[in-house]
């Protein structure tokens, strides 16, 4: 009950934010993840500004060219600038990664929440259905859905989003199951709160940090998923650049120009790694049990 250690000008909310920020900054890997992930997002948004060339501009004087001052990462089999294509290609990856996870959240969270909170036969049906869907590996599910929907970036995003739904339903349901038993939920019932208010004020806000972490961790999976779909021809269609498309194109020239496959591979690796590091960092700072 002493106020000695309290900086007087700060509201509790601001203080909590400051504590979280300090905890986050103490994790160098998480900071690197955040910076790199942000760089990829910015690169995708600012592609027209920062890419040195258009993604489809060909230079037939420089085909399969080595890195040079003119083309920092060289050129591909049609003389297109590889760096520019990587930058333009990040748009597909980021879009598929972020949008598909958002889509999955919007679908999965209400379903999982309702199942976990209200229990009953609805919960049983949803839980068993989720188990069945979870028996399919994420990528197989996404490939199957993309094949049904037809090849395009938006369909690939949709397929990846639907593919991520079962896992998220399970997480939201599990959280809701645990939170509905919390003492403050019982106290809210005793104070006359209705079902909707309990879900909106007591259950959902307390599962947000888990959902944020899960979302961040799912993004790299979706980015890789997009690359896989595009590589298989189920996602972005050439000549639109995408890391998966670039990998697929590079395949024919592996012996002459192996670096053509390495660059998009590295981009996928670094981008998904950065989101993974960010997700791990967020989990560490938001989970009170790992407080250091």
């Amino acid at each position, binding site marked *: *009950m002493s106020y000695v250690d309290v900086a007087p000008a700060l509201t509790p909310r601001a203080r909590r934010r400051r504590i979280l920020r300090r905890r986050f900054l103490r994790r160098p890997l998480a900071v690197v993840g955040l910076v790199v992930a942000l760089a990829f997002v910015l690169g995708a948004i600012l592609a027209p500004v920062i890419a040195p060339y258009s993604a489809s501009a060909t230079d037939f004087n420089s085909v399969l060219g080595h890195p040079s001052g003119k083309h920092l990462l060289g050129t591909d089999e049609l003389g297109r600038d590889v760096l520019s294509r990587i930058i333009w290609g990040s748009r597909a990856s980021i879009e598929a990664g972020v949008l598909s996870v958002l889509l999955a959240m919007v679908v999965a969270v209400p379903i999982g929440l309702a199942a976990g909170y209200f229990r009953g036969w609805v919960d049983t049906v949803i839980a068993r259905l989720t188990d069945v869907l979870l028996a399919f590996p994420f990528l197989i599910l996404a490939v199957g859905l993309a094949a049904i929907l037809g090849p395009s970036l938006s369909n690939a995003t949709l397929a990846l989003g639907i593919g991520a739904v079962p896992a998220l339903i399970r997480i939201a349901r599990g959280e809701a199951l645990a939170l509905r038993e919390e003492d*403050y939920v019982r106290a809210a019932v*005793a104070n*006359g*709160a209705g079902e909707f208010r309990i879900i909106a004020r*007591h259950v959902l806000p307390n599962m947000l940090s888990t959902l944020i972490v899960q979302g961040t961790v799912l993004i790299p999976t979706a980015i890789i998923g997009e690359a896989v779909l595009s590589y298989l021809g189920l996602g972005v269609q050439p000549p639109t650049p995408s890391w998966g498309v670039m990998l697929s194109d590079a395949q024919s020239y592996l012996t002459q120009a192996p670096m053509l496959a390495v660059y998009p591979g590295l981009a996928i690796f670094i981008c998904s790694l950065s989101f993974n590091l960010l997700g791990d960092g967020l989990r560490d700072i938001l989970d009170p049990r790992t407080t250091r």
Partner: protein
Amino acid sequence: MSGVGSTEPPRSEGAGFAGAGAEAVLHVEDLSVRFETDDGPVHAVDRLSFSLEEGEVLGVVGESGCGKSVTFMSLLRLLPETAVVTGRAAFRGVDLIAASTAKLRRVRGREIAFVFQEPMTSLNPAFTVGNQIGEVLRRHLGMSRRAACGRAIELLDLVRIPVAARRVDEYPHQLSGGMRQRVMIAMALACDPKVLIADEPTTALDVTIQAGILDLMRDIRERLGTSIVLITHNLGVVADIADRVIVMYAGRKAEEAPVHELYARPQHPYTIGLLGAVPRPGAARRLQEIPGRVPSLAEPPTACAFAPRCPRADDVTRSTVPELREIEPRHLVACFHPGPSP
């Protein structure tokens, strides 16, 4: 009915209280709670009747599992769906047991408020305490956000939280256990309820903090005239603040009396056992335990539930269920061999 002589027929205590002059806010009659479990029914509360008078502090004591919490949670339908509740509970012209859930929702927190045992976990960690107190005010009284915030500060002041104007913006994790329990009480008092049910409000707290909370409850009764039900297993707490005490055993009322009467002339051997187990400063004697264990409540009793642990048990107690008798005005006991300890 047992052959043992009784001055009053059983279950006449309602009439007895009416005779005492005070008006009952809450009148419960024949309340039974049964849990349907996989192993068959469990009779948690068996035909319990009692009244709560205006401005009274009623202590309800008994060991874990005797049905004291279940009784009061059943009144507001806070039990899991496996609970089957029967009986009547008249509260301001409404039978709580028969009322619709929508109707009950308006009683919960507004007219009958609960304070739970666990202050550490009974507040939502995601919102400030002011916001949470305000939620109750906004919902029940339709206050604006601004008015609710002002009232929340008043309430925190009422429960004697220092620097309430600042505490109102703090999150639960920034408060100590005693502070959180004060916040819970503030929240319970938000709508000026007729009845405050405090379920082991001090059990999770330090002894010094306990005294502060009890002091606060006494103060609330005096200032607001709220009727308080204090559920506890701590007879010291009851002696401190209650006007009247109900001793429960195995889902039934074992004894009921005004607090001084109960402490001066305990009649039921269980009550005597409980009192013997209270540590007293200065007394060098060994604390007396009650031998045996709390009985299983799987079947409706065919004998006195306390008989296996009772020094006075005989053939009658092992074959017949004792009914409540009024041995003194307002002093009820369910025992075939009542009386002070030999």
